[in-house]
């Protein structure tokens, strides 16, 4: 039982699963739902949601992202709390949607209203629900990689670490060079594959040096890149999203 559960009854939350998680990593939004419901929230998943447009924006196709921004504010405009298990998609909404909407004042105003209410999972847990101990249990050696956009775009700070430290059974070990980019960078990984791999191999080496069984982060995109390299090396290190560790309990272990 979470110590905070009784105080949180009925907080209505819209889950922004993100298109990438929805399609490739459904375990992460599922874990987010389990976790938030365990903490007493009422979680809704508006089915009209699609994508924040980050890939388009960051590759130079901001104009193509306009309909996605319009859809985003339409779908999530009615909620006080929108939560997403992705630092980089939240970064796209909070830091880039205004730029995409700059030629459309009406859309810009709606973005200014909606975007600040969109929180990354650890922000929502620590700042809105006011919990750091979410009642999780995960008896493994874990190291945490703070993804660039969660760190330097939306500034989640040490919130994910506060949450991880409170997980029972966890052996949380520090990652050397944690704040350095892993080299994913969206289409950067495809457009500059050699540099991306050079960065990723350094990150993977630092992960291996910790002796951790599990690498955790708040973005499955970065984890797919680092995990893809760790897998290719047959390193035996698993990658997991923060939501999945926080959702893990003794009764329902991840």
């Amino acid at each position, binding site marked *: 039982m979470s110590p905070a559960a009784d105080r949180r009854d009925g907080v209505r939350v819209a889950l922004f699963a993100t*298109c990438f*998680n*929805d*399609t*490739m*990593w*459904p*375990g992460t*939004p599922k874990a987010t739902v389990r976790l938030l419901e365990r903490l007493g929230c009422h979680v809704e*998943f508006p*089915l*009209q949601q*699609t*994508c924040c*447009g980050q*890939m*388009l*924006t*960051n*590759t*130079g*196709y*901001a*104009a*193509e*992202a306009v*309909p*996605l921004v319009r859809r985003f504010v339409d779908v999530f405009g009615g909620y006080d709390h929108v939560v997403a298990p992705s630092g980089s998609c939240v970064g796209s909404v909070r830091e880039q949607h205004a*730029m995409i909407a700059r030629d459309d004042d009406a859309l810009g105003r709606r973005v200014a209203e909606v975007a600040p209410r969109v929180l990354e999972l650890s922000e929502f847990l620590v700042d809105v629900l006011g919990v750091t101990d979410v009642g999780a249990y995960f008896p493994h050696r874990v190291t945490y990689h703070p993804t*660039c956009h969660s760190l*330097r*775009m939306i500034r989640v700070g040490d919130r994910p670490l506060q949450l991880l430290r409170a997980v029972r059974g966890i052996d949380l070990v520090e990652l050397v060079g944690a*704040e*350095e*980019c892993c080299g*994913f*960078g*969206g*289409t*950067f*990984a*495809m*457009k*500059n*594959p*050699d*540099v*991306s*791999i*050079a*960065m*990723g*191999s350094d990150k993977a080496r630092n992960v291996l040096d910790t002796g951790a069984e599990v690498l955790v982060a708040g973005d499955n995109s970065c984890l*797919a*890149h680092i*995990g*893809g*390299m760790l*897998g*290719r090396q047959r390193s035996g290190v698993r990658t997991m999203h923060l939501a999945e560790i926080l959702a893990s309990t003794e009764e329902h272990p991840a």
Partner: protein
Amino acid sequence: MSPDAAGHGQAPGAGAGHAAYPPLQVTSPTFVGMPKFPKAARAELANAQQRRNLRHATHTIRDKRAQVVAEVDDWEALRVKGADAKDEALTHLADYLERLEERLTANGAVVHWARDAAEANRIVVDIVRSKEVQEVVKVKSMVTQEIELNEALEAAGVSAWETDLAELIVQLGHDRPSHILVPAIHRNRKEIRDIFLREMGQVGRPAPDDLTDDPARLAEAARLHLREKFMRARVAISGANFAVADSGTLVVVESEGNGRMCLTLPETLISVVGIEKVLPTWDDLSAMLQLLPRSSTGERMNPYTTMWTGVHEGDGPQEVHVVLLDNGRSHVLADRLGRQALRCIRCSACLNVCPVYERTGGHAYGSVYPGPIGAVLNPQLRGTASDIDRSLPYASSLCGACFDACPVRINIPELLVELRGKAVEESGPTPESAAMKAAAWVLSDPRRLATAQKAATIAGRLTRGRTIRSVPGLGAWTNARDLPSPPTETFRQWWVREHRNEDS
């Protein structure tokens, strides 16, 4: 004398070919014809010695910077002050430049205006020729690298001696600068010793035969080699870190004292100054002189700061020329968002924290301005006609470390994204743009997305959690990374299954 062509077009890091080098010919290879960034980067990444040198150097300077920035009470307020001073100057640039010209002229300097590199070079060459000298000494200056002044001087039969230690290493090594502050950052001590032993005797006082790679011995060899050039030179060429409009003062910030020698000993001083270097008032210098050394060398204060205001009889150069250079800057200024790049004070903090720069080094950027600031500044200054300039906005993972480190708050990631948009606009329809438009079409509608997801889950059922090691057409990913197998059910499908009786 003709410009030497032996070094032109060499692959980065390639040596050889200087045995027959005539003295007074020290031109470096140019950046013309550089391949696009990913290709240039691939070659650099394979240079193990350089990777090691860069990693060591960038991490050392990164740590030093972090330490001295942390001890300032309100670094953020200082950053804002620095950015504001630059913005004020840029917003009223024409006014401040006229004021600067007026003050400089009143103080006995001669002001020249240059639209581009060719004009600036012609002005400098003409002045040097009128002095009937065969050589000039130079203070480290990015802008003269930008306009390739050394090459222009050599074409006119004048040797331009770089006197900054790292620039000297680059020049003697027939190399190109790879960093704004420490242009020989890609070289280690042993390589420097070898360059000194091999090259110094070709162009002046040779290095002692028993030279070791001890930093003190290397510096001493450079000091002795340069001393005779300082004592002989009648003309010096510099840039300026700042140009204060209300007093007509130029400022050079340096560490070695070579700048002080050049700025005080010769009879004639020619300073080439980018028009964005102007600061409105003397007061604005206070923020800048706190921001620059800490961001740049990781020092609280740099060892030598030289300021001069025109000509003073019997003290220092008696003929002072200032060449105010545009060379694409007014084009950058015209861009509402892009103009913030002109705030840059060339500290190189963004290079030192950049994970891409740390691995590729500076040569892959095809410009004297490498790293994150180069990735935005070069396409803005030079346009996007070349392969390298078109590819630079993509030479970043958008990790944001550069913006955090920038002492004048240039939002480099934001600018990169903006420039990517321009690159897409200019390149017209491509396979990529077709794919992106298709993705946008799918992603703008939940039904289309669900249909596309169905295809993914079918692939997921076929692979059933097996590791995917290779996919035709996805080599850029699967050459070094496994690909996750798609799930057999998307989150959306799961949610609908779980909440059948609800209406979302």
